[in-house]
């Protein structure tokens, strides 16, 4: 007789259970009507909201803006255009998942690109070394944020507001407020523009930068969903004290999150040089806020611990689709800004509504 058979065989003392309810313990269903069921579905699948919005907006702009919008080329161009903000949104998501916020991501990225450019083009450092040093600087800048948040116990908003200004000033000082020209980079360190290269598949043109963006999200998805560290990040964001009681070294996790975010910004800096062509201390001044917009539209809760990392990728794409679609339809640029504003508010309102399911 195998063990399995033994397990199935009823034992004597179980006879008394004969008249009782054989159903396993379950929550009572709320499914009263379609709206409730939808709310439940969305609560269980947090990425679905932005995905639905993306599909709907692509379809809508396909009708409004006509054939040009739907071309493989335009759709791949949208990916190119959002690649840098998308990468920053990946960094931002990590921090927001811990119920923090990182206002310094854009400034960190521009600072690192200036460091890479100055080392490689103006100081003759070999490009791979310059890129490596840039990565270290980005991670260190992130750790600095993490240090102030955990050791000095300052709110992330305050810390990163401060470092935003600090990085921005350093970037101007290092660059002397001067751009490094595209041609000079080509001559001295073409490797810096690696992510500006592209491959063509049919009509579509994918820059290495846009492929990099997707890869960064894929790696982060794996890390957050399939490793212990990833679960720690969610746990710390959901309830720091409970995580602490569960034995997670929360402060250490937080510093690591900020450092990884800084490193992702530095990778973004390399991609940005490829995208822009030159190293300009004046680029991406609104990137901090644009990255937060992508994260919020992507459905990651600003209160931490909730949302899928794929959301911000979709969020960045939604912003790109809106901008591209409205532009191709010939809408004035200020109405694009207007539309993104409403989109942001509606996204947070949706998040609040979906959360009510658990209340």
């Amino acid at each position, binding site marked *: 007789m195998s063990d399995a058979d033994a397990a199935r065989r009823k034992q004597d003392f179980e006879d008394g259970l004969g008249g009782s309810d054989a159903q396993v313990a379950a929550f009572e269903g709320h499914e009263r009507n379609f709206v409730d069921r939808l709310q439940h579905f969305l609560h269980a699948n947090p990425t679905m909201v932005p995905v639905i919005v993306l599909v709907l907006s692509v379809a809508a702009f396909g009708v409004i803006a006509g054939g040009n919008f739907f071309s493989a080329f335009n759709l791949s161009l949208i990916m190119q*255009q959002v690649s840098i903000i998308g990468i920053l949104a990946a960094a931002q998501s990590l921090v927001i998942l811990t119920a923090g916020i990182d206002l310094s991501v854009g400034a960190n990225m521009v600072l690192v690109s200036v460091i890479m450019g100055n080392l490689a083009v103006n100081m003759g450092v070999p490009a791979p070394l310059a890129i490596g040093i840039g990565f270290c600087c980005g991670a260190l800048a992130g750790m600095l944020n993490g240090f102030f948040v955990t050791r000095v116990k300052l709110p992330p908003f305050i810390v990163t507001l401060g470092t935003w200004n600090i990085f921005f000033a350093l970037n101007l000082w290092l660059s002397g407020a001067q*751009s490094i*020209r595209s041609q000079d980079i080509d001559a001295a360190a073409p490797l810096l523009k690696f992510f500006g290269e592209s491959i063509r598949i049919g009509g579509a043109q994918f820059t290495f930068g846009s492929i990099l963006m997707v890869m960064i999200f894929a790696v982060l998805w794996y890390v957050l969903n399939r490793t212990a560290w990833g679960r720690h990040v969610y746990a710390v964001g959901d309830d720091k004290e409970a995580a602490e009681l569960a034995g997670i070294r929360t402060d250490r996790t937080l510093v690591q999150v900020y450092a990884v975010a800084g490193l992702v910004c530095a990778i973004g800096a390399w991609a940005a040089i490829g995208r822009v*062509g*030159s190293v300009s*201390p004046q680029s991406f*001044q609104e990137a901090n806020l644009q990255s937060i917009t992508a994260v919020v539209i992507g459905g990651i809760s600003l209160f931490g611990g909730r949302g899928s990392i794929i959301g911000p990728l979709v969020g960045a794409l939604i912003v790109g689709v809106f901008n591209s679609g409205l*532009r*191709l339809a010939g809408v004035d*640029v200020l109405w694009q800004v207007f539309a993104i504003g409403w989109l942001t508010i509606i996204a947070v309102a949706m998040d609040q509504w979906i959360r009510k399911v658990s209340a």
Partner: protein
Amino acid sequence: MLKTTALKTAALAIAGAGFLGLAQPASAQEVGACLITKTDINPFFVKMKEGARAKAEELGVNLSTYAGKVDGDHETQVQAIETCIASGAKGILITASDTKAIVPVVKKARDAGLLVIALDTPLEPIDAADATFATDNFKAGELIGEWAAKTLGEEAANAKIAMLDLTPSQPSVDVLRDQGFMTGFGIDTKDPNVIGDEDDPRIVGHDITNGNEEGGRKAMENLLQRDPDINVVYTINEPAAAGAYEALSSFGKTEGVLVVSIDGGCPGVQNVKEGVIGATAQQYPLLMASLGVEAIAKFAETGEVPEPSPGLDFFNTGVTLVTDQPVEGLESIGTDEGLERCWG
């Protein structure tokens, strides 16, 4: 008790004497002047500051400089003017971020007896300042528009033109350059105070660049999406032109497309030399600033207020077309001379 009071009085007296000792010779010997720029970021303003400093040193003027944090930072500029009035300066040179909103505080400064000169950017109304030293931005646009039309010759009638502008708020320099270009090219601008109201089919569209490379690239991509046959690109400044060129090369369209720009910064003129930009209109921030400091020194000495250029409501500091492909009937200098006179 008495002792401590006496000590305090003595300390105060010494401190007071110290202040007087420091303050008096400075105000008696030197003329104070302030330079307030939009930002410290843009090389244009960096150069302006350099020009003002050099001239101030030469004339023995005590120059203080201030700048907004970012373009459009109006509040910091207001504070700078107030600081200037309080410091007893004789005059202010200002590149206003908000040309209308700055007017009341400028009036306060003039009422306090300071000479206020607007540099580069005219106030609205222009006579809100005692004088304006600036590039004729409309003329700058007109020069590159005319150059583009003449370079294309008969093909100008079939041109496909992309307009790469500055910001959604359409500041005056943006409007003047944009409309100047169209006028020079031979396009009816309709209302010359508004960007984008013309109906000439040769204009593919307008997009904004924020005056930097990243914005230039994005705007160019967007307009190429609307019409891949674009063959003339107007850009608000040379960083935007560099970005546009990146987009053109990623579309494989660098041949046969004319890119024109405005500014005359050294990287921009270098780009003209290398064929990235066809022609640029060069302006002279160093000259604006040094003339401004001279005017304040003169005002402090004689009370004389500078006069505008004949026929204009501002003092024209000049603009020159820089290109290596000169066209007939349009005065220009080559890039070698342009590089000698460039800034930034």
